[in-house]
């Protein structure tokens, strides 16, 4: 009996505001609160909330037979807490059903796996801790940013104890092989690989509402028909996609929600198909072959490589400059700096600098707040320059402190310095709310509505944004 494994990606970056060079050294707040909030509100209303509601209903209806998995980035979780706490709550309800698995990834959707192992591992730890705190379970299956994977990354993940990794069924890796089996890492045979079935996943994610597509309109009935027609010997069908496919990328009017509702019904009608979470698939099936992947693959573009993020000189320059700062970041204890450091790593910032933009205009501009990759790059570098100045100052001052006064609490200095421009709203912050504080620069209107909506349930959530020492 073939099983269907669905995993949905939930991610939102913290978009940067327009940051001019003359602000370097003067202004240290980088985020476009308005864009971030309005985007999050839009996606929450159009996609996350209605889709979660449907999933919850489906789970109620079919019990443990219907299952899905989510990978939610730390930045998305942070944004839920700031702008859409009800979304977080609805995910927690889903988590409580035990039919939903949450996957491991990096906290800030970073590309660190391509350059810095330590940062990569640290971000995984932070993310998983947050997931465990919010949803009660430690993830056992890993999904890297943009499904980036190669042997080396697989080795690191195996060392961390992950049982499996989700990645792309890239054609240049598979050749004649089918993505509908479980594979194993060639260098670490105990690490299993789940590969995305691109064609069927993209039929939903990209082609669903395309009226020029010869299969339009796509119904659940037809889709399940295709699945039934697949080779019966195959074990699994991995449907991986962005969660905002439902209601945002494919609008409500396209009937995507009806499709989602009808899909399990059609599946169960067949009596030959079931649903499983990634960890169940990994438990249940033996790998059919080892896969050796030398160069990193991803789920982007035709090439399925990392060129969408690191394909040109701008991206490489920004990326290398950023990671060159890591050692200095480690010397600092300023929680705001640490947070900015993470948010700076978001893959989206590098995506905005892609010159593939000029070729695949539409798809790239859909997600893109900048008019051109050059603008994106200049803005990013301006922010990075300011960040570097702060890091240097911080590293210097922490050096001095260590030398001069050991008995003083070393955090006092950066803390007071940082707080001065913000935190007029929340004065009763306790020390473990520093990270939160740093982001209270959201417009007062925003924070007001936020407070209103989350009044009753706020206590539980505030603690979750805790900075680490």
């Amino acid at each position, binding site marked *: 009996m073939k099983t269907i494994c669905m995993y949905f990606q939930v991610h939102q970056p913290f978009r940067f505001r327009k940051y001019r060079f003359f602000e370097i050294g003067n202004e240290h707040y980088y985020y476009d609160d308005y864009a971030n909030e309005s985007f999050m509100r839009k996606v929450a209303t159009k996609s996350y909330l209605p889709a979660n509601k449907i999933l919850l209903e489906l789970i109620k209806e079919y019990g443990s037979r219907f299952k899905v998995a989510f990978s939610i980035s730390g930045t998305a979780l942070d944004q839920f807490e700031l702008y859409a706490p009800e979304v977080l709550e609805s995910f927690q309800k889903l988590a409580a059903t035990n039919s939903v698995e949450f996957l491991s990834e990096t906290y800030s959707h970073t590309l660190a796996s391509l350059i810095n192992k330590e940062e990569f591992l640290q971000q995984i730890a932070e993310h998983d801790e947050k997931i465990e705190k919010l949803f009660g379970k430690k993830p056992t299956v890993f999904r890297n940013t943009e499904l980036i994977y190669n042997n080396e990354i697989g080795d690191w993940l195996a060392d961390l104890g992950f049982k499996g990794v989700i990645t792309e069924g890239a054609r240049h890796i598979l050749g004649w092989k089918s993505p509908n089996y479980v594979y194993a890492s060639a260098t670490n045979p105990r690490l299993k690989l789940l590969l995305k079935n691109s064609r069927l996943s993209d039929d939903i994610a990209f082609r669903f509402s395309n009226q020029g597509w010869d299969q339009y309109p796509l119904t659940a009935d037809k889709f399940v028909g295709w699945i039934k027609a697949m080779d019966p010997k195959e074990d699994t069908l991995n449907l991986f996609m962005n969660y905002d496919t439902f209601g945002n990328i494919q609008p409500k009017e396209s009937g995507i929600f009806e499709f989602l509702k009808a899909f399990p019904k059609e599946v169960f009608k067949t009596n030959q198909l079931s649903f499983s979470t990634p960890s169940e698939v990994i438990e249940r099936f033996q790998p059919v072959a080892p896969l050796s992947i030398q160069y990193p693959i991803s789920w982007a573009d035709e090439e399925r490589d990392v060129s969408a993020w690191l394909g040109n000189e701008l991206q490489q320059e920004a990326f290398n400059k950023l990671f060159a700062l890591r050692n200095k970041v480690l010397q600092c204890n300023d929680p705001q700096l640490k947070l900015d450091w993470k948010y700076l790593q978001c893959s989206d910032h590098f995506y905005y600098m892609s010159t593939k933009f000029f070729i695949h205009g539409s798809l790239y501009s859909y997600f893109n707040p900048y008019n051109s990759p050059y603008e994106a790059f*200049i803005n990013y570098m301006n922010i990075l320059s300011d960040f570097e100045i702060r890091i240097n100052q911080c590293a210097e001052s922490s050096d001095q402190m260590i030398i001069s006064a050991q008995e003083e609490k070393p955090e006092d200095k950066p803390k007071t310095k940082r707080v001065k421009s913000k935190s007029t709203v929340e004065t009763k912050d306790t020390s473990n709310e520093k990270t939160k504080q740093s982001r209270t620069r959201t417009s007062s209107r925003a924070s007001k509505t936020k407070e209103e909506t989350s009044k009753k349930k706020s206590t539980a959530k505030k603690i979750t944004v805790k900075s680490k020492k």
Partner: protein
Amino acid sequence: MKVLMFGWEFPPHISGGLGTACYGLTKGLSKFSDVEVIFVVPRAFGDEDTTNARIVGASDVYVNQKRIALKGFAQELSLVEVDSLLVPYTEPDEFYRITRKYAGRTWRTFTTQHFEGKIPFTGGYGPNLFEEIRNYAIVASAIACDYDFDVIHAHDWLTYPAGIAAKEISGKPLVVHVHATDFDRSGGNVNPRVFEIEKQGMEMADKVITVSNWTRDIVISRYGIPPEKVITVYNAVEPLEEAEKINIRRGIPDKIVTFLGRITMQKGPEYFVEAANKVLKKMNNVRFVMAGSGDMMNKIILRVAKLGISNRFHFTGFLNGDDVYRMYSISDVYVMPSISEPFGISPLEAIQSNVPVIISKQSGVAEVLNHAIKIDFWDVDAMADAIYGILNYPALSTMFKKYGRQEVDKLKWETSASEVRNIYYSLLYRN
């Protein structure tokens, strides 16, 4: 197919964008064996070769016709030079200033029989641009009688009346080519007489060619021309030969940011100054150069002095020929902050010299370039930011050098000419 083209400037006399565009387009058209161009140009300053001169019609205007073979042209070109004081890029006031020195010259009187009856046309009252345009039109109608052609093509408003006259005499279709409108030149404060001539030209034309969609929109919205009649054909740029590239050693270690163009309202020089001021507040090792001349120069010099950045902001005066390329070769950034630029060939030339460019979104060239930074002309913050970015983040220059050149090399006059040729054919076979 023969084209009677009323154009501007021919080597060695090219002095600006309009002449360059006419020359490039004609050269591109010469690659098509089925297109023959009779090129009519005004020659005002009497240094031309008049051995083949003859009087056209009954007027006493000298017309000098010759067949010339030009480098890069696939065919010989019939060049018709008309003795006229018309010069491109003029406005009525400026024209007066330029032509004042000829005031003593006896004015010609001529009569033409090509109109119904005899229209005596008497000059003699000193240079006036509008009279000169009319004179030119009358000569045009005479030329139209003498030559055999299928299509008329007129470049920019000074020759529209000539185009119209030729059309009235011959009944052949007219194409007017809009390289600029008075809305670009005046910043919206149009001269009603110029506007009238422009509008009439576009209305009488069977097809209007604009050099960008930016201009096309102006033609449609400001002049009320039906959109289906207006077609955009982008300009291109002559490939730069390796030998033409000049490399001079710069005498100073500083970075150089260049503005190159007429210092007039249309070109937005004041925004460049404000942006320079912002950049200079943040970094020292940079100098700004404003190359060109124009009626706003004094104002700009004053502003620069007032901001106290004169030691970092330099004026070169008008540059031509090799000096332009010399300027490019020492520039790190080229900025074109035009308020309304129908096309703008100079950024393409800068890119050919491997200089990264910042161009205003209010320009036609912004429609064809990907590898350039585009800003709103009024957004001096964005302009300053882009300048700073290019000077400080080396990956940008690398990218621009790598891809900008490729992109510009793809813009060929032959492509533009082929589109123009299609327009000719659409007019010939429309019935």
